[in-house]
């Protein structure tokens, strides 16, 4: 709760304070705010700090952060800070874009803490509404406007489905909190079958959530929205929305654990087509940004596999999401730096190793990590996820392995251009602020991949 309050109040204050300032002047304050709330969340999760007395007024059965939730809040805040810092600030006055991102982040945090269907809905809406604005924040860009409208319509549509599902669930069980829902379901399981309303409600709520995490076949909006939105916003959507969505989805699925066997029947095929569809479509893309959009779809497929296990060890999910977030943020940073107008294919990286070595390191590390190659945190995440799902969802893991193989084909495409060039420009080390951040993040990716023991200090 401390994180959400800090970010919310701090953002309002900064928005007013920065109303007439250049955006890059307020950026450090936002960074500090996000980083500080992330650190507080982490310290609270380890029991070093406690803020319970401040928040006695919060109903515990509706919003409650357990240790893993707090750790994920920390991850989210830090990743948001990273995204803000990697990308250059827009050349305009006002802190509104950063503030909108922070508000959206508050929604994400609320989703993580949700223990009640209404709070979950509230979280989704708080997360989404600022994003509708952000997607169209580049007003002169026609495809940005299209993205905003598309995102808004799809978001409204999925919210409606979610609400209908929630109503069904309430009708079937007369309760709204996860905990009581779990008890009802265990009770029904004992007698052999689940009420039809519960099943229908579960399906509809999941469809609403799958829209948010863009799983196939509910993904059609995402490549267009990703492509049209400004890079910074896309990066935010791909990282923050996906992480918050998946943590919320995992908690939700945990409440429905007694139904797992029945859920697997239809969620495993969805996971499989998400993996295959995402990877195959990504393979066919010409634009780097669309490729990243489809890649994030395929990652949703892998993550769904985890949601189909008993989820004893949530740190597996945390590691995977952290790895995904770090590498995706880096790749978006590189795209933002080198894409130029219509030039947005893989050839934007031509001769990168000759013009900017620091960014080459970032490109190589981020690519290896997102492809799950050993030595990077991406491998640790994938290995843990696959070995957790290996027993319960064997065929799902086999499809995921197949997907990983396909993914090599497109993730490695930038290498085709990065190391080959005719230019004679000398090798350069380039230390802009963005490059510096990217090298730090690359080192973190490598360090956590080579010494995964460090991860157990966090999770």
């Amino acid at each position, binding site marked *: 709760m401390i994180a959400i309050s800090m970010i919310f109040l701090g953002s309002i204050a900064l928005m007013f304070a920065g109303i007439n300032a250049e955006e890059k002047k307020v950026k450090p304050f936002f960074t500090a705010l996000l980083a500080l709330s992330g650190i507080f969340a982490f310290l609270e999760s380890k029991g070093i700090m406690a803020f319970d007395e401040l928040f006695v007024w919060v109903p515990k059965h509706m919003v409650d952060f357990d240790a893993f939730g707090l750790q994920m809040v920390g991850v989210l805040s830090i990743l948001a800070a990273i995204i803000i810092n990697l990308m250059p600030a827009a050349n305009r006055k006002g802190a509104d874009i950063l503030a909108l991102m922070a508000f959206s982040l508050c929604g994400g945090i609320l989703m993580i803490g949700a223990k009640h269907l209404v709070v979950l809905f509230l979280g989704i809406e708080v997360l989404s509404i600022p994003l509708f604005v952000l997607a169209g924040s580049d007003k002169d860009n026609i495809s940005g406007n299209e993205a905003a409208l598309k995102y808004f319509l799809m978001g409204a549509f999925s919210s409606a489905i979610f609400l209908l599902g929630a109503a069904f669930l309430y009708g079937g069980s007369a309760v709204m909190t996860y905990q009581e829902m779990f008890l009802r379901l265990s009770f029904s399981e004992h007698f052999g079958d689940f009420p039809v309303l519960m099943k229908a409600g579960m399906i509809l709520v999941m469809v609403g959530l799958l829209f948010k995490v863009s799983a196939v076949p509910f993904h059609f909006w995402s490549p267009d929205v990703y492509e049209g939105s400004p890079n910074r916003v896309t990066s935010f959507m791909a990282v923050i929305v996906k992480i918050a969505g998946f943590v919320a989805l995992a908690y939700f699925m945990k409440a429905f654990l007694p139904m797992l066997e029945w859920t697997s029947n239809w969620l495993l095929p969805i996971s499989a087509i998400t993996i295959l569809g995402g990877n195959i479509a990504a393979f066919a893309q010409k634009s780097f940004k669309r490729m990243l959009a489809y890649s994030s779809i395929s990652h949703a497929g892998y993550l769904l596999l985890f949601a189909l296990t008993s989820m004893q060890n949530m740190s597996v999910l945390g590691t995977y999401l952290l790895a995904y977030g770090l590498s995706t943020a880096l790749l978006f940073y590189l795209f933002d730096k080198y894409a130029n107008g219509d030039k947005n294919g893989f050839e934007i990286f031509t001769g990168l190793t000759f013009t900017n070595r620091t960014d080459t390191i970032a490109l190589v590390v981020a690519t290896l990590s997102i492809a799950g190659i*050993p*030595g990077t945190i991406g491998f640790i995440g994938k*290995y843990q996820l696959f070995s957790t799902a290996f027993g319960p969802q064997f065929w799902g893991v086999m499809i995921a*392995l197949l997907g990983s193989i396909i993914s*090599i084909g497109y993730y490695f495409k930038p290498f*085709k251009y990065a190391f080959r060039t005719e230019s004679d420009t000398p090798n350069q080390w380039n230390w802009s602020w963005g490059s510096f951040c990217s090298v730090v993040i690359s080192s973190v990716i490598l360090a956590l991949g080579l010494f995964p023991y460090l991860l*157990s200090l966090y999770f």
Partner: protein
Amino acid sequence: MELIIIPVVAALLSIFTKGNRWINTILAAAGLGVLLLKFGPSNMDYQSGQWVSIVDVPWLSDVVHFHLGLDGISYFLLLLTNILLPLIVFSVNDHRKPSLVPLALVMQAGLNGVFMAKDGLMFYLFWELAMIPIYFITLIYAERDNFVTTVRFFIYTFIGSLGMLASLIYLYTKTPDASFAFESLMSINLGYTESIWVGAGFLLAFAVKIPLFPFHTWQPNTYTYAPAQGSMLLSGIMLKMGLYGLIRWYMPLAGESIPYYQPIIITLAVIGIVYGALIAMRQEDMKRLVAYSSLSHVGLIAAGIMTMTETGLNGALLQMFVHGVNVVGLFMAIDLIQQTYRGRHFAELGGLAKVNRWFTILFFLIIIGTAAAPLTNGFPGEFMLLKSIFDYDTTYVVFAGLTIILCAVYMLRMFQFSMLGEAQEDNKPMALINTLPLVVIAVLVIVVGIFPQWFIEIFEPAVKNILTTISNTKGVMS
């Protein structure tokens, strides 16, 4: 532990050496120094045949341990890796390839790890870590824009690796103590069907890497277009990872499936022997010729391993060393020819012997070593391998034995077209300093050829130990 850290540190240092080949070679030789001084036969007991742990610390929670061990087999292959690396690094004499040496040294760390890993996931990890630098070497310094070749190479090996990973995770889910330790993985008794599936995962990884006959399609192009040092690393050391994996991981872990796979692999290997040799005979490009000859030679080694006899395994290990040394020598000689005379096709060469006396002698020694002439290093290993195949099935040895004849045909053909014949007018002698690594290799050709027992003694007890373990725990008769 030192064998992993020192190459990594050396790799970092080598970024700043400005391509000085002597300093780079010293950095690469540091691994060999540690190996001989700290883990030499005088300090470690290789005669007991036990796989002795040297490091064991938790790496990822308690499931995966950073667990390294040494026995005669590991030591012998480490010796191969660390002898060849300085030679390969020395042969880099192009300042326009600044990342080559650091990548090669990182690969050295990965290879050292592969040959020592005593934990299933560590083995997988090092296996892939050795793979990444060579991918970048072949990609960055390729002779032409060959993204498709390298990506195919990577995807092929990655498919294999994932098969192995799946098998390892499957075994891990069966272990009573939830661990990837070699002993725990080995202690499981698999049913016949599941052992076949687990074995398939392992064999996929190893067959692609070795490469066995139908899985070799990545190999010729990768070898041909890779920079010379990339080809040396790939064929000299990297192939041995697959063969080592067969001995160390496939046979003990999925031993129940050996009766099923034994005839299949031996047949494929023998097909590969003849097929590789026949194609090598028709090649005009020297590098491609060596690539196919390598396919032929490793086929023989794989067949020898799968006979599951002591002679076969001893011969295979000796031949792994010998093949590594010889093929690196061949690629190095071809690289020198190409550097000095701007080509490596037979049409562009000829009469080089007239201007390069020493080089010709060294090259010839390596060639007859590869062709397994008696008293050179190729002979004892091939003899033992053929003997083991003879014991397994006489029909196979008729075809496998062709390797010696055919090898002599294409090797001598290569020598004849490149070194002998009409000299071209502008031929000039090559720099003698560049042939220094070839001297080391030629010495090894003769020493191993005359005193093979010196080397066999290192790993013989470990081979015995492995065979007894397999027949005890997995009930497979050798």
